[in-house]
């Protein structure tokens, strides 16, 4: 086994699904360019041809709609939105069309496809080059939403999403692109067999989240260890439909929960984690009130000090966790 970075793992996932399914297409802006989506799709156009790896005009809505149409006729498109902020322009096709066709047409058809939205923030890029909008999309029945945290999941959830009979929104985060780990060879993955997973074990508190928030939680756990506090880190992996089993198991053990999320608090994923933990536990299983770390309720700034204040860090996560533990010990 060799060490593979998250962004290269995504490319390996594309290689696997396009190799194993000749009906699989990739379509989106910048796919013939080396700089749009990092290294995550480098060379795929040369390997699979420009008929299957399609670079498009600046038309997020039509591109996504074209993918829905191709999916309804036996193809397996993966639409790439190099920056999630721009994917908002395709939201009708994602929310009103892809997610609803099976249900509203009586279960007779499904646009089984993958929509890949990339979270690309930091670096003073500002309010429209920064957003993590998974909480919005995870609200929608009919759409599956997955957020890989690790390189292996970056590859395997892409494979699972592509092999799913339902439309799947796959969200990767460029802050994870250089995270490396050793990976077993790629294989088929059934998305419905994937649920939340425990990434680290401890006793004092559960840190839960998805995608980059898991990385923050793991780094925070290292810091907490130096304070003599050990924690569970639960990687949710799938946001919709949400399977809270691993989260509830962990909370029953630790009695404390800090939900971490890279989107806003109001009606957001962190709140959903707390609610689903509360709904599946008894009051006497809790040792402290659950809490959450999210973004401030403001658009992303550009200025360096404001940006530093805006994003949660391993330190701020560790501080919040320590606060919960200390107050309830």
């Amino acid at each position, binding site marked *: 086994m060799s060490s593979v970075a998250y962004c290269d793992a995504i490319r390996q996932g594309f290689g696997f699904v396009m190799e194993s399914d000749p009906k699989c297409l990739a379509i989106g802006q910048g796919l013939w360019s080396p700089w749009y989506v990092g290294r995550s799709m480098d060379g795929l156009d040369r390997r699979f041809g420009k*008929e299957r790896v399609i670079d*498009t*005009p600046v*038309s997020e*809505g*039509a*591109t*996504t*709609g*074209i*993918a*829905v*149409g*191709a*999916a*309804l*006729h*036996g*193809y397996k*498109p993966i639409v790439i939105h190099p920056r999630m902020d721009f994917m908002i322009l395709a939201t*009708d*096709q994602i929310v*009103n*069309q892809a997610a609803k*066709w*099976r*249900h*509203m*047409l*009586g*279960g*007779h*058809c*499904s646009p*089984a496809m993958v929509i890949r939205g990339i979270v690309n923030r930091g670096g003073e890029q500002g309010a429209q080059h920064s957003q993590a909008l998974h909480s919005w999309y995870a609200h929608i*029945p*009919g759409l*599956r939403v997955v957020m890989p945290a690790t390189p292996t999941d970056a590859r395997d959830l892409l494979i699972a999403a592509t092999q*799913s*009979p*339902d439309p799947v929104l796959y969200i990767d985060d460029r802050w994870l692109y250089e995270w490396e780990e050793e990976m077993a060879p790629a294989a088929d993955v059934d998305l*419905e067999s994937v649920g939340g997973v425990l990434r680290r074990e401890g006793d004092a508190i559960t840190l839960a989240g998805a995608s980059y928030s898991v990385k923050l939680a793991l780094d925070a756990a290292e810091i907490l260890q130096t304070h003599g506090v050990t924690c569970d880190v639960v990687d949710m992996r799938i946001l919709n*439909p*949400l*399977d*809270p*089993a691993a989260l509830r198991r962990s909370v029953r053990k630790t009695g404390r929960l800090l939900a971490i999320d890279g989107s806003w608090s109001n009606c957001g994923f962190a709140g959903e984690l707390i609610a689903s933990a509360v709904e599946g536990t008894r009051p006497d299983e809790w040792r402290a009130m659950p809490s959450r770390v999210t973004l401030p309720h403001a658009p992303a700034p550009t200025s360096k000090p404001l940006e530093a204040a805006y994003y949660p860090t391993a330190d701020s996560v560790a501080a919040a966790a320590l606060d919960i533990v200390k107050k309830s010990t």
Partner: protein
Amino acid sequence: MHSTTSDMRLGPLADPQLFNEPLDLGNGATDALLGYYRSMLKIRLAEEVVADLYVAGEVRCPCHLGIGQEAVAVGVSSALRPTDRVYGGHRSHSHYLAVGGNPAAMIAEIFGKGTGASAGMGGSMHLYAPEVGFHGSVPIVGATIPIAAGAALAAKMDGRGDVAVAYFGDGACEEGILHETLNMASVMRLPVLFVAENNLYSSHLDIKLRQPLDSVARFARANGVEAELVDGNDVVEVARAAERLVRASREGRGPGFIEAVTFRWRGHVGPNEDIDVGVRRSPDELAAWKGRDPIGRLRSALINAKRVAPDSFTLIEEEIRTELRDAVEAARAAPYPPEAALLDMVYANGGQTS
């Protein structure tokens, strides 16, 4: 065919006092012409049945009737085969029926019954009959335009010469998605026929209050898509344009666009004629358009040419009325979808259970 004037207006085609004479049948075969007649009459009578059910309070789901516009779908469908991929919008009864969608399944769908075209989960605005090439309709204005283009991409990759059709109205031409899709279909040379039913009104609002020029074919030409402007109440003319543009698409020459000028006799939604305060439709305008009746003009032409005996029309009408009567009876008697369908159809393997 009609050419738009240099400033891209409809000109005489938008004047209901014109083009109301019997159709010019050319050398069209009588069987084919009678087939158009039967298909248009079936659509007309089916929609009248739906309107009556609505008035009677038996049907509550919003129904957007296209009475008066039957020639567009029937003309276009004459160029299609079952492996083609047709997509519609909120006013798509005609598009569904014209390719051979089952009227009984449509009426059951409008009743919300489990025997409906979409198993009672969609209603009037979500029709589905893939076995005859009708792959879905939705009411988000313009939403199926790129989906049809995607169906065309699939057809192109399949390489069997199938085409896709996107039906939409003049209102959808005000949505950005049409322009994005025209551009992409053109640059990707997709085998898709865009069919704009320009009935001069979007909901309540006259096209003159919505667009600076009233011919929407200008958007196709701006994107390098070949367009034909036709009298949408002349089934022969629509069929001829569709046949030419569909052939071009099948042969790999990319997309085509038909602008069919027509008029709906009922309001935007529901059975009424909507000649009300705030609605810019005058009784005189409506009466004039009824004089440009696509069915009456074909019928007169067939009688004038002594191609068909008048009692043949009576027979056709009786057959259709019987079929529709049976369809309504069957829909009334059919069961509603089971409550489990609420969750069962969300995902391929059911809904959320946690």
